[in-house]
């Protein structure tokens, strides 16, 4: 069960500012929707607890976030894995920090979620909606935090 998404965010901040922001585990962790707690493990690893509320799926889920910056191509890749009770959700997302030349920045992102275990079997449809929302909201939060 894997599910793909993509999107774009126009951010009113310079590419350099955006590039610095997306490499900061604390800041990126805080962008996760409904995040309740963020604990930075090291410069590229952060644990976060998010409150999930999609239909019947309610409760707190522990997520492990790994940031993989690629300075040359100004691309940041992220691995998010989390779950509970024998289920695992592996999200991979990546964003290209693009300089359209007008002083602002274009964040072109794409994401993919792979679910395993009972959550895939039962929550397949629930999961799709939740994973898409998680990734969309995270990148929207990046824009919000940078333009404020």
């Amino acid at each position, binding site marked *: *069960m*894997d599910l793909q998404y993509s999107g774009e965010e126009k951010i009113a901040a310079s590419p350099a500012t955006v590039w610095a922001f997306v490499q900061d585990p604390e800041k990126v962790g805080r962008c996760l929707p409904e995040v309740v707690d963020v604990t930075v493990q090291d410069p590229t690893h952060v644990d976060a607890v998010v409150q999930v509320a999609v239909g019947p799926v309610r409760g707190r889920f522990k997520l492990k976030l790994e940031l993989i910056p690629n300075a040359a191509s100004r691309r940041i890749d992220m691995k998010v894995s989390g*779950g*509970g*009770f*024998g*289920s*695992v959700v592996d999200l991979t997302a990546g964003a290209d920090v693009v300089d359209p030349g007008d002083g602002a920045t274009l964040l072109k992102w794409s994401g993919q979620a*792979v679910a*395993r*275990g*009972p959550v*895939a*079997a*039962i929550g397949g449809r629930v999961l799709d909606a939740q994973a898409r929302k998680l990734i969309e909201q995270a990148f929207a939060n990046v824009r919000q935090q940078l333009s404020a």
Partner: protein
Amino acid sequence: MSTESKPGGSLGVAMKRKEDPRFIQGKGHYVDDISMPGMLYLALVRSPYSHAEIKSIDISEAMKVPGVKAVITGKDLEAAGLGWLPTFHGLDKQMVLAIGKVLFQYQEVAAVFAETRGAAADGVEAVQVDYAPLPVVADPFASKTDKVILRPDREAKTNHIFHWEVGDKDGTARALAASPKRISQRIWFQRCHPAPLEPCGCVAYFDTMGRLQFHVTSQAPHVYRTALAIVTGIPEDKIHVMSPDLGGGFGNKVPIYPGYVCAIVGALKIGRPVKWIETRTENLTSTGFARDYHMDVEIGATPDGRVTALHVATAADHGAFDAAADPSKYPAGMFGIVTGSYDFPTAHAEVDAYFTNKAPGGIAYRCSFRVTEASFAIERAMDILADELKIDPVELRRKNFVRKDQFPYPSRLGFTYDSGDYHKTLDTALEALGYQALLKEQAEKRAKGELMGIGFSTFTEVVGAGPSKHFDILGIKMFDSAEIRIHPTGAGIVRAGTKSQGQGHETTWAQIVGEELGLDPQNIMVEEGDTDTAPYGLGTYASRSTPVAGAAIAMAARRVREKARKVAAHLLEAGEADVEWKDYKFQVKGVPAKSVTMKEVAFAAYTNMAQNEPGLEATYYYDPPNMTFPNGTYVAVVDVDRETGEVKVRRFLAVDDCGTIINPMIVEGQIHGGLTEGFAIAFMQEIQYDSEGNNLNTNFTDYLVPTSLETPHWETAKTITPSPHHPIGAKGVGESPNVGSPAAFVNAVVDALSPLGVRHIDMPVTRDKVWRAIRDAEARKT
């Protein structure tokens, strides 16, 4: 058919079942009904990954969960010498709890013991396992490349488990090459699962005498006792296995599962009773699956439809461990029955098995050891041949049937069919069906563009494993046994080495004793499943109960009769030689009026036995001289909805020949149940894995069991061709309907679509597949 049980003449009586009163009043006794003071609940941590290294298992959080008493992992078991268990036929071994890495999704990783079910589940959730995913091998064809070696623990560093073959390889190849007509088809019998309504489970504890008291859902309790003794080192006298009422088995309750071993180890380590009951998800994802045979079938024939040669090459998906519960000399089970009901001049069958990242197993779901796969292959391929030769599939079968006069028939792949009258069974079906009228209706419908199909399956099975010269499990020969004791008042008890899971042994075994000894079956108690009391037996599966244990009961009864004859002679004041058993009583030869009943003799055996040994009992261990070969003709009539791809089974007729019938009502019940399983397999069921090794059918929402609304109405009929070598001529019938029916369903659908040029559809025949087959065929036409 008479339904009254009476002393003598209880064979063939549709007697009401003796075991029903407890079930209809909620007084059945299933494993999960057992609860004991201080009993702990065991729940298993399972892997979400299908192939991954285990970096670490952190049980600290779990141990803090209120109610959790202990958590054990593979390393703990390894330290106790129980890390790996030999698989059923002893040619491989299987991890109890994962050690080092996991090899299939939902594999057991850790065992949590807690005071309540809730606490056990909470404990499972708190165990932190760190996995490092490894590349996944999702089918035998990827496995064959050996790019990723799944089992480095084995000596041979390959995923190839075994090559098996039987028959004349070169002769068949030559005959095929020389055949003017030839068909070949890849036929995949998909992975499915027996899913008995009661999941597997056990209660294990060590009593004050240090004996392991082990209540478990087992179809073969004695084999469990011996295997556990060998594996755990606990002396066999200190192991008491009790298999109570079982809520269905269908082969799912033959293997010994990791949950059982963890329960025993837990009970020993913690010193309290431990109950393990699996969930439906655990049952479907980790216990014995069935089938998963990719079969390439080739048949050669003359233009007028005489078959010349058969070749079948199979790639078998055995999952992560080779735990297929076959007799040890038969890695591909009875697949050699693939020539079916047809007299092939030459044949050659071969099977290559491979490891994959899927659950282990393969032998289950009423399969008679791969007979379901073999029968589906030949019955589907014969329809493809009929289509190629433009001959009516009925005529093609009739022309190639083994004739009645050829029995006992030596098949080209090593069996000697005991008896059969295939033409009579076929004609019985055609007449009951009104075949000509159906053909006329089909022609009219086809003219209007409607899709109607008629599908046949004229199968022959091989059951009743089996003769000691060929068959053993863990070295133990596959005999079976019975012990009969008649009490002073003429009542009695029979104990057998089998274990019913709903087949009605408490009634049918009593009917055999009633017939053989002229006693009332209502007063013959039947007991199975308790290894402290029942004589040693190999259990109930592969339709072996009646052919093997049924024979043992008849033979034990005849030993009782011989002993009784001595007491009768004394009562009749006649020489033993002058006393004969006739019309269910002992008579002085030629003087029928001078006779005594078995009831009278039984009383005398305890009160007036003269010089004879008191008491009236006997035991018999029956080693069958040959297997038995039930057959049948099944016919499905279907209508296909072009717009939705739905297939409606309008009629289904099953004519079965299983030799002598003990209880027609119970036989009919077995046929109804087996046909419903065949229907489910043909149209609904599959255990599917994606390329990542994720199981997509892990519960009853996605692994479909048909309800009363989808299940067709079943028409049944019979012919009777007794087995010459069985004491009462019985052949066994439990698996025939599951063996024979899938081909009839699929043949009917393909027949309905044949005007569009469709020649084969793999099971399950879903609406989506049918709709697309129609759409693609119409696209080809324009």
